[in-house]
């Protein structure tokens, strides 16, 4: 077992873990103050639910063997048969071209965190208006029916896209396109927020958005570079390209925004960074510095344009999961077809397009069915009154902020004694 590579993957996994709370904060800052906790929780709960499902059967379905090029088998259910001496192959090779061996547990942890963040990405599209209990069910079903299969297609030997030679290094297709298209389907079922296109819905805290962006960007080095499952020069190239594309996308987004709307905004810079990170994800291991710049700039400009589409087309993708993750994911996935230093060309482009569109088709249908089934049974959407009051209060029985005892702001009252309460029970809708 290679200690260096195992250690690198473990640390990368810690970095990927922090992306999910980072995403929670990124999204949380963008909503109004009455839905910030719900937004945080929609991401955070994925850490709880998906980690467990992954251990129970997700890892097995995604990475153990292959059934019909479509899904894994049940051999590794509950991590059966895997112990601390088990290994998997790294993409990094020794002088003889043999892969390094890393601890299987490190790979399982690393991939678990990819499964965790993918459904969390969709939550931004549904901000402000869904029942939290329904969301939990949705996450469990979606990750099982959409993510585990697609991860198998793309990353597992035997998976049909993997076998076809689609390049999806760190998850442009399996993670971002998958979540982006899922978000679109879910939004179409759930419908628009009350007041969409009419009420002002300013981000309640842009510093929170920046904190989230910082954690996402930081963690993304683990996400991208860690995907080599080991360290060599290509790992370093991946990390470097991650930085380059992100920088370029910031600039791309800001320039487009300056021309179109007259300002260089903070939200634009953060959004550009995420768009760049998304776009370089599938491709960063296979392009050179200029390729990374090009992918970044294109992603920045196009995503900056794409986030306005929802106003024109009328779907209410609250925090632009479609505009950033679907569009950014497609850009990265397709561009690498041409820009890949080793394999680029029409042939590869065709494969990339096949990968992107088949995942879009499959996941759109599956997600639509899941969301529709939830809507018709337990109900997906919060009641109108709950939505207007705010999902923090109605779904979580909490208030995000109480600055009342700070200087100059101080109605800490109107809130009474916790004690009696502590000894009695009461229902709040969640």
């Amino acid at each position, binding site marked *: 077992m290679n200690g260096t590579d195992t250690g690198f993957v473990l640390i990368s996994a810690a970095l990927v873990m922090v992306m999910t709370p980072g995403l929670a904060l990124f999204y949380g800052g963008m909503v109004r103050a009455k839905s910030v906790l719900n937004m945080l929780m929609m991401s955070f709960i994925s850490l709880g639910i998906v980690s467990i499902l992954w251990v129970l059967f997700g890892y097995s379905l995604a990475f153990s063997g292959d059934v019909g090029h479509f899904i894994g088998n049940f051999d590794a259910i509950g991590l059966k048969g895997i112990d601390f001496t088990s290994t998997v192959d790294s993409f990094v090779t020794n002088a003889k071209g043999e892969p390094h061996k890393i601890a299987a547990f490190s790979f399982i942890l690393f991939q678990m965190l990819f499964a965790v963040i993918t459904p969390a990405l969709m939550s931004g599209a549904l901000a402000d208006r869904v029942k939290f209990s329904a969301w939990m069910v949705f996450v469990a079903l979606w990750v099982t029916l959409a993510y585990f299969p697609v991860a198998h297609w793309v990353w597992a030997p035997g998976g049909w896209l993997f076998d076809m030679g689609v390049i999806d290094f760190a998850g442009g297709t399996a993670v971002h396109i998958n979540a982006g298209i899922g978000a679109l389907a879910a939004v179409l079922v759930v419908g628009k927020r009350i007041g969409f296109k009419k009420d002002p819905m300013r981000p309640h805290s842009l510093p929170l958005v920046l904190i989230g962006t910082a954690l996402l960007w930081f963690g993304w080095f683990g996400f991208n570079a860690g995907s080599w499952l080991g360290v060599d020069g290509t790992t370093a190239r991946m990390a470097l390209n991650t930085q380059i594309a992100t920088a370029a996308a910031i600039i791309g987004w800001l320039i487009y925004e300056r021309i179109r709307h007259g300002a260089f905004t903070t939200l634009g810079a953060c959004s550009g960074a995420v768009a760049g990170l998304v776009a370089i994800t599938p491709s960063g291991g296979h392009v050179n510095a200029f390729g990374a710049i090009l992918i970044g700039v294109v992603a920045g400009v196009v995503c900056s344009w794409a986030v306005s589409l929802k106003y024109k087309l009328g779907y209410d993708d609250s925090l632009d999961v479609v505009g950033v993750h679907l569009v950014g994911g497609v850009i990265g996935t397709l561009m690498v077809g041409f820009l890949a230093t080793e394999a680029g060309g029409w042939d590869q482009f065709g494969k990339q397009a096949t990968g992107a569109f088949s995942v879009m088709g499959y996941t759109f249908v599956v997600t639509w069915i899941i969301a529709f089934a939830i809507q018709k049974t337990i109900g997906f959407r919060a009641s109108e009154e709950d939505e207007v009051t705010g999902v923090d209060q109605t779904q979580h029985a909490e208030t995000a902020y109480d600055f009342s005892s700070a200087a100059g702001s101080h109605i800490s009252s109107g809130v009474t004694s916790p*004690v009696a309460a502590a000894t009695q029970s009461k229902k709040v809708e969640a």
Partner: protein
Amino acid sequence: MKLITAVVKPHRLDEIKEALQAFGVHGLTVTEASGYGRQRGHTEVYRGAEYTVDLVPKIRIEVLAEDDDAEQLIDVIVKAARTGKIGDGKVWSLPVETAVRVRTGERGPDAL
């Protein structure tokens, strides 16, 4: 002159602003407030402790108006603010002795 004060549900602000504008009033001052009354608050839970929050968010709108307009203005505001549910709030008017526009020093009706 009168000072009309309205304590109403926050999300009615836009309707009230529009209704006032339609009526010909173009200025107002808004403060954030909390109301306590018939409308009950809600319960929150923090680590096993349940809290009752009984102050409800309201906004407080002040409009200076000429004597003759006052009654009509009150009606306009009441209509725009009404949802028909408990907690819709109150509107009241007070007699004003002097009103001045700071920028020009104009007094009385001209100050509006």
